[in-house]
């Protein structure tokens, strides 16, 4: 994205009016452009004034208790709940801090704005008591798990040990409810690092998750090869 193109995106970004792919492209420019960051800070301050537009209603008292109990030390982050997750949260934090933004929340997934917010979202997801987990198994070697929150509809696929694919091929994630699998995004596996892929959706709808190898960079509308890994959602019959 050129600076001129990016400049045209600043107002829409401040209004949260960009599509997820545009957000990623714009944020990539933003990290390198002081001028756009300043422009954004100003327009964002104006946009924030619109926040007070709707009629002001007091939130329920119960919400305060609920939120405060979630942050009090007594309910401090639980230890890793799944054996494969040991140490992963810290690693995830580090990886995301190092700017592995491209691995996060692509395509039809929810796009998050702030890098560190992304990191904390991931940590939150991995440690939240309401998160659920699905392990995937199949012909491929490697360890792949989906951690998802059925309430917030956020999820992350955590993949390690998957074989890196040659150019022109990608791993594609499918969520299966009816006869036609729904694409949940594509990703590349790194040589050594763990890959995190953001997956958004109403997980209660789905029976299963599957991964197949598809032509890159965009993947296929429907799977063209046999899935190498599959997993069933808890409660799916």
């Amino acid at each position, binding site marked *: 994205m050129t600076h001129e193109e990016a400049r045209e995106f600043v107002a829409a970004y401040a209004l949260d009016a960009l599509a997820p792919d545009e957000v990623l492209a714009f944020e990539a420019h933003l990290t390198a452009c002081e001028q756009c960051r300043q422009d954004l*800070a*100003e327009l964002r*301050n104006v*946009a924030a004034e619109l926040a007070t537009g*709707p009629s002001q209603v007091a939130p329920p008292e119960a919400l305060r208790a609920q939120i405060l109990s979630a942050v009090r030390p007594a309910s401090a982050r639980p230890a890793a709940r799944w054996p494969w997750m040991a140490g992963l949260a810290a690693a995830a934090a580090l990886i995301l801090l190092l700017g592995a933004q491209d691995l996060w929340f692509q395509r039809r997934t929810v796009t998050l704005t702030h890098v560190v917010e992304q990191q904390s979202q991931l940590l939150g997801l991995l440690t939240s008591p309401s998160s659920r987990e699905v392990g995937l198994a199949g012909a491929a070697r490697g360890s792949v798990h989906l951690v998802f929150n059925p309430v917030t509809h956020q999820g992350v696929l955590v993949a390690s040990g998957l074989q890196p694919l040659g150019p022109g091929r990608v791993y594609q994630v499918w969520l299966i409810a009816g006869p036609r699998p729904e694409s949940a995004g594509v990703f590349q596996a790194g040589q050594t690092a763990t890959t995190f892929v953001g997956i958004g959706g109403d997980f209660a709808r789905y029976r299963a998750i599957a991964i197949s190898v598809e032509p890159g960079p965009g993947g296929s509308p429907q799977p063209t090869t046999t899935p190498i890994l599959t997993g069933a959602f808890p409660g799916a019959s």
Partner: protein
Amino acid sequence: MAGGRVQGDDDGALLRSVAQGDVRAFETLYDRYAGPVYSLARGMLQDAQAAQEVAQDVFLGIWRGASAFDVERGSPRSWILSLAHHKSVDAVRRLRRHVAVPLSETMTDDADVVSEAIRKVESARVQVALGALSAEQRAALVLAYYGGYTQREIADRTGAPLGTVKTRMRDGLLRLRSALETAGKETVP
């Protein structure tokens, strides 16, 4: 905006304390912003339960992400309200995806969509400021901000070229800024 508001500085200090894990500071911040955050989500989603979920998500986001706050990116207040808006837009879009009938069929008229979005505005100050914009700028801003539509969807809806929509958004925000400055600062945080 450079207003030199004491409250703004105060919020910055609170956020720094929250970043250190200070629950007290977080409580103060909650009491200050829970109203505006919840009201924004409720106004956009028109659903109390969904608004509570968004508000929870926003405040946990503040708790976990306070260290990411960067004054270079705007005031603490606008950081919090942007986060609230961002989460509300996500929720609006999620709900919209799960509506069986495409919205384009339930909303027959573009004017309806705009007036539906504009009905969400109750603050006299914001109403007056929006009134200073051209109808096209106003439509672009309210569809984006309160309706949660993307610039491309707005172009499709209004039949205007994408480039025009982009210009309306920028010019609309700039005009809104001067209108708000004329209207003076609001007392709500």
